[in-house]
């Protein structure tokens, strides 16, 4: 299976994406997934359009991307975390 590229993005690329990045790193280890994480600002997503397989973000995205987008706010509030993890897992296991 090809290694997946996962973009982790927030508005500033400082605070929230760091937390989300940590949570997904743990998931990758736990489930032994073949994926690379790239932590970026949401404004930088465009330059990864050709390579990325998934975008996980706490910022809003009005733009359409050629890959699925998962909202990761639950990693910050603890509400609905399991559902979000499931969404990410499904995409990475494809």
């Amino acid at each position: 299976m090809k290694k997946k590229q996962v973009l982790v993005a927030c508005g500033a690329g400082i605070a929230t994406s760091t937390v989300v990045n940590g949570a997904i790193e743990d998931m990758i280890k736990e489930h032994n997934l073949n994926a690379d994480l790239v932590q970026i600002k949401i404004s930088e997503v465009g330059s990864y359009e050709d390579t990325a397989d998934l975008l996980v973000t706490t910022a809003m995205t009005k733009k359409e991307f050629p890959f699925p987008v998962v909202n990761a706010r639950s990693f910050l509030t603890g509400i609905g975390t399991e559902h979000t993890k499931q969404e990410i897992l499904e995409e990475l296991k494809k």
Partner: protein
Amino acid sequence: MSDIYFNESIILLDVEAETREEVLTTIGDNLVNKHLVQPSFVPAIIEREKEFPTGLPTAGVSVAIPHTDVEHVIQKNISVAILKNEVDFGVMGDDSEQVPVKIIFMLAMDEAHSQLSLLQKLMQIFQDENELRNLVNQTDKKAIKRILEEKLNFQELEGGNK
């Protein structure tokens, strides 16, 4: 790498404001006066909040974590403000929803992608309804400082940066 600045002088209680711009200006101006951030920090954080809202609806007391780019920060710090009355913030990642926010953690970081364990500990507080209620009911800045120092474990974090 410098330590995180955190003490009573950047904990604000009973902050009165009608709008989120007022809230952000009050907290930000305090940091400017203490030379912890550049004057450009205040307009930058207001702009960022418009574009990427940071309100987080939690199970108990809703919070916001405004932050902006590292170049506006002189010394990294976390400022806390408890509002007299809730003020509406946009919900993070959702351009249609607002959330009435009671407590603000303004994150002034001086390096991107750092402070993972600190941020994770902060998020753990957000996930603890009782702890948030406990925090907003405090009337003494020292008590808030003590609770957060214990929960965020600043000492352990020193030198533990990525």
